[in-house]
């Protein structure tokens, strides 16, 4: 089975091992398992947070407890009392690479972050367990007033800016998992790009889960001021564990007038992880928000990045790729809300199901009254690699305005015998040919990724495809 990385042993053992290792890290503080007001307060205290944040957490916990589990999407088999909600690997956050503890460095070395940084990065934030331990941002960006830090630091160092937006785009009451995140969040990125500043290189963060039964609840807030531009990239590779793990992030983004933000994620979770993420952006006049979202691995992913187009001329684009293999359910999709006239939305979703995997597209396009001349198009294509696998489409469209244009196209296809034969007649094995066809299927999205992520994505797909043809 290809997604079980330990078993796919043929070609790139080194490559595979890269994603499957643990390091023994001295844990300075480990909260107790489970969830209670005491634990939440303790987390807040450990972080030396101001009172408002502690109150926000406690209130969120109440909301979490009062909300039922969602009854749609996938089956969520998580015992909330059996999870560590906070783990701090080291007391201090490293300033430079040299300051980073050796064990953690080893982990990052194996992920290739320092090289990546040298080559491409404007700034690196690497999240190890719950805290950001290493961060750097090129000096000139800092000079322009760009803030790129972890959210915990932002609570201390940029309290006013943070408080103005934190929890306003996704309030704790939004859904059960947003409430959970709001109660126990830790880490994540905080980015502020001042008026008119555009950052040429993508800002990147690596997230990892590296402790058993540990939930990861990062919280990201990005504020792109008027006329500013930023591309944020988040990549994820989790090592494999046998007990169930929960990942529930919240990402809030504000795109002010005529700004542009692109948020790229590639997540490759271990097969036992529940990945339940709430991502939402608001875009004001003439602003452009793009989500590019790649989901591989995990036991269940439920993720529907949203763009609320609040003022005329706002644009929202959501491009997503989901790959579901044995034992995996990818319930991914998108949400576009046209709340003003002349707003433009686009959703492109590609899913691949293999070896009994299940992928669903769940999307909503909503046009509010008065949002005249708005346009949206939704294209979702599913590729099913065998008879055991499954793909579903749940497109919801709510239109409360006449003068709009909304398009929806959906296709489901199987890998064509004719295509396979054509490639095999040129000397490609069946597995190579299928991999190539799958690669071609997602290519329209992959080419939107930064170079090194495109390479990574293609390699991940190859790993997923390995041994898929018997």
């Amino acid at each position, binding site marked *: 089975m290809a997604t079980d990385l330990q078993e796919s042993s*043929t*070609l*790139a053992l080194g490559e595979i091992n890269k994603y499957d290792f643990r390091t023994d890290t001295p844990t300075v503080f480990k909260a107790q398992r489970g969830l209670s007001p005491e634990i939440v307060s303790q987390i807040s205290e450990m972080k030396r947070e101001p009172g408002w944040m502690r109150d926000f957490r406690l209130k969120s916990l109440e909301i979490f407890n009062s909300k039922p589990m969602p009854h749609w999407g996938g089956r969520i088999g998580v015992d909330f009392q059996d999870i560590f909600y906070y783990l701090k690997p080291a007391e201090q956050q490293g300033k430079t690479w040299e300051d980073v503890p050796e064990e953690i460095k080893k982990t990052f070395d194996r992920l290739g972050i320092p090289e990546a940084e040298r080559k491409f990065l404007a700034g690196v934030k690497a999240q190890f367990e719950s805290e950001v331990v290493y961060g750097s941002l090129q000096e000139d960006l800092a000079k322009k007033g760009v803030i790129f830090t972890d959210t915990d630091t932002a609570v201390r160092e940029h309290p006013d800016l943070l408080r103005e937006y934190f929890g306003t785009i996704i309030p704790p009451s939004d859904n059960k998992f947003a409430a959970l995140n709001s109660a126990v969040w830790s880490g994540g990125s905080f980015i502020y790009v001042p008026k008119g500043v555009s950052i040429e290189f993508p800002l990147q963060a690596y997230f990892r889960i590296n402790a058993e039964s540990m939930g990861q609840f990062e919280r990201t807030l990005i504020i792109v001021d008027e006329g500013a531009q930023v591309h944020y990239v988040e990549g994820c590779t989790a090592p494999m564990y046998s007990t169930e793990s929960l990942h529930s992030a919240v990402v809030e983004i504000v795109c002010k007038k005529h700004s542009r933000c692109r948020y790229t994620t590639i997540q490759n979770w271990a097969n036992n992880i529940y990945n339940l993420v709430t991502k939402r952006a608001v875009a004001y006049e003439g602003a452009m928000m793009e989500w590019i979202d790649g989901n591989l691995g995990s036991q269940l992913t439920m993720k529907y990045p949203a763009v609320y187009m609040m003022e005329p001329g706002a644009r929202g684009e959501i491009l997503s790729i989901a790959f579901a293999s044995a034992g995996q359910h990818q319930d991914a999709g998108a949400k576009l809300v046209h709340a003003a006239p002349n707003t433009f939305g686009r959703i492109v979703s590609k899913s691949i199901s293999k070896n009994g995997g299940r992928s669903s597209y769940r999307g909503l396009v909503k046009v509010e009254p008065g949002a005249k001349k708005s346009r949206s198009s939704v294209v979702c294509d599913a590729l099913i690699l065998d008879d055991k696998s499954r793909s579903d489409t749940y497109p919801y469209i709510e239109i409360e305005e006449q003068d709009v244009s909304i398009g929806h196209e959906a296709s489901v296809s199987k890998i*064509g*015998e*004719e*295509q396979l*034969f*054509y*490639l*095999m*007649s*040129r*000397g*490609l*094995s*069946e*597995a*190579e*040919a299928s991999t*190539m*066809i799958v*690669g*071609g*299927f*997602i*290519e*329209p999205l992959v080419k939107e990724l930064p170079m090194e992520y495109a390479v990574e994505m293609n390699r991940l797909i190859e790993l997923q495809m390995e041994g898929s043809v018997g």
Partner: protein
Amino acid sequence: MNERLEIENLHVAVEGSEILKGVNLTIGRGEVHALMGPNGSGKSTLGYAIMGHPSYEVTAGSIMLVDADGTAHDVLEMEPDGRARAGIFLAFQRPMAIPGVRLADFLRHSVTNVRDPDRKEGQELMPMREFRGELKDKMKELSMDSDFARRYVNDGFSGGEMKRAEILQLAMLRPRFAILDETDSGLDADAVRLASESIARIGGAEMGILIITHHEQLLEHNIPLKTHVMLGGRIVESGGPELAAELHKQGYERIRKAYPEAAAAEEEMEAERRLEPAAS
């Protein structure tokens, strides 16, 4: 004896109905053979069967690849990729589009496998520089723009572009035996002339070529040693280049009259086809 591709008494069925009814054909390396015949007579079916298309079931007969020392390899035992690696190539009458896969990427993979038949999946591909250089040269020889290799395989190609891409693949893969299934169709007059020259240059004495065509032009620089006529799933007559000229000018009247049995088989196949839409 010469290296050769030997087809004996080949019977092929598609979805249970027999299309080829005993084809015999031997092509030596370095020889050019032309295969003509009316629409639906089974020419493409022969190409598919040689290449190992899964829908074309060989119900009787054999296809053997014989080395110069006389060692015979059973082609029917090989998967399509094995056949490609053994040196067989089919230029498709209607090549398949593979959206999202760049011609250059696909070809690099393909060339690597065919030149190193023992290569295992995941092993190194042919070095990029070397590949690019060679591809560029070949494209130049075929008057193709090098940007063309960045396009997705056959996706949105014009009819002529598809056929040129097939010739490019032929040039890069340099097989021992090539079946060119109507590689001239869709090409304009100049392009056919260029294709004819290119195929002659690529083939030289190194390749055994079976040219399936309804025209003569492709044969201009590839004078066939033999011209074969297929009718109703059999090769009913073989002759020299003059036969190709005759068929091209005068059609298949004479052939149908001379081989009433094959002509009857042809009619039967046509009748079956007419019934199909009603049956399904």
